[in-house]
């Protein structure tokens, strides 16, 4: 905490310097910071800001072992640590849906999840949707219906649309719009997105025999 607030190493107060010294001493004497000091503030400084934590993520069928700052969101873990840059960062605050992924088959906003708390969950990103060279029907439908202009929101739209179809919320254009309301498109391609989801939903129900 203290060190991160003064990244240049300048401007420490006397008390902060003493706390940092105490951390160092604790590590030296006890080998364990928690055991070496009674000060929660010092222990948290060491455990929180300085120590990365081990996180195991299951993404698109592959397990990844990462060492992450506890603050890392699932979205940043995917993009910055696993180089899965299909999921996009729009607002970073859960408002735009560009970061949508599936977690245990349910759509979630990966910018609102801490990566460490996604352990044990099966994550599916846009990269995990196609079967080899065979695009997912909704990916194909987005191309055929021209469901985008700039394309930035598209991975999130498609992941959300896949879930929308699986949930059965495609009975009408109005129902699709309501259940896709967590995904914004600043180009305004909504009509085409709704059409693409209708197309893919029709394929999905016909392959199920329904």
């Amino acid at each position, binding site marked *: 905490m203290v060190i991160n607030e003064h990244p240049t190493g300048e401007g420490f107060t006397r008390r902060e310097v003493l706390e940092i010294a105490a951390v160092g001493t604790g590590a030296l004497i006890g080998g364990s910071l928690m055991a070496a000091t009674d000060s929660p503030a010092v222990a948290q400084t060491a455990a929180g800001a300085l120590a990365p934590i081990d996180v195991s993520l299951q993404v698109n069928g592959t397990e990844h072992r990462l060492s992450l700052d506890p603050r890392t969101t699932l979205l940043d873990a995917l993009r910055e640590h696993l180089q899965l840059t299909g999921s996009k960062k729009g607002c970073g605050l859960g408002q735009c849906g560009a970061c949508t992924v599936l977690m245990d088959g349910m759509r979630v906003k990966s910018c609102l999840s801490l990566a460490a*708390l996604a352990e044990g969950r099966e994550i599916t990103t846009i990269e995990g949707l196609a079967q080899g060279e065979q695009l997912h029907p909704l990916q194909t439908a987005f191309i055929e219906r021209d469901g985008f202009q700039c394309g930035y929101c598209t991975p999130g739209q498609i992941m959300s649309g896949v879930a929308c179809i699986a949930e059965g919320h495609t009975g009408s254009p109005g129902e699709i719009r309501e259940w896709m309301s967590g995904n914004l498109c600043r180009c305004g391609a909504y009509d085409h997105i709704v059409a693409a989801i209708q197309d893919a939903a029709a394929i999905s129900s016909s392959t199920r025999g329904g």
Partner: protein
Amino acid sequence: MHPFALERPRDLSAALALGAQAGRNDAVAEYIAGGTDMVQLLQEYVRRPDRLVSLAGLLDDAIDVGPQGLRLGAAATMAKVAVHQDVVGQFPLISQALLNSASPQVRNVATMGGNVLQRTRCPYFRDVGYEACNKRAPSSGCAAMDGENRWHAVLGTSDSCIAVHPSDLAVALVALDAEVEISGAGGTRTVPLADLHRLPGATPHLETVLEPGEVIAAITVPAGAAGLRSHYLKVRDRASFEFAVVSAAVALDVADGRIRQARVALGGVATKPWRIPNVEQALSGMSLDSGEFRSAAALAADGAQSRGHNEFKIELMQRAIVRAVETAGARA
């Protein structure tokens, strides 16, 4: 985000022993469950806890209906509660409020406990670029009083704070006499949901009655609130994925075309989920086709105080009550 230590306790008692506290910006430790609000607050530096204690997997997520009524485990998600057969069948007001909240992605993760403990959407609270926010920084002032306060409260306000409590769920629950089971290191206690949140008064930074090391374990709704004719009306600036400008939760016990008992609560206009007993009493005994609902709804304005841009809410909330009562009454 401010650096924090992330604790992932093995069981609830270990989590409670860490003494985190909800709804206080000066708490050094906070709990995180679904995280859909907490991560926003962390990202924006509104919350800067030194320690974050995960409740993942530690709280009950069951949804049960029995002779005592409805019991929602604190970790039950908004999505699961919204479509649960017994909730839809017997407590449709709850389902309706949930389906009108947030987005599908958020509802898949956000929990019952977290929903009622979510923090206000007041833009001055959420933007640390504004120094004045008594809720975020005690005694720093209130930027909303003379600022853009179209979204702000007209009921339950004080000279220190006019921030709205943003939950739809809590409005429906308070109308149904819900109670909150609270677990702490010292045991379990139960408080009416109506008493969970504090009025801002001179201390808007103290939002709930939760003590350090206490968590919401479950929310219960008495069986007496089952099977009522109800409606949750949400008025908002866009058709979906938006917080309420005004909302009205109404549940009616109707016999022979006449209201025997009414339950009415308002959202979007008050500093906490806002039950209005005087409106309920006035509605009691009214015929569904009497056309007199407006006179009862007018009582909701008792004590209402505008700060300028939010003046329209005083009229709009009365109209919302009338519409919600009419819609609920027309249900079979």
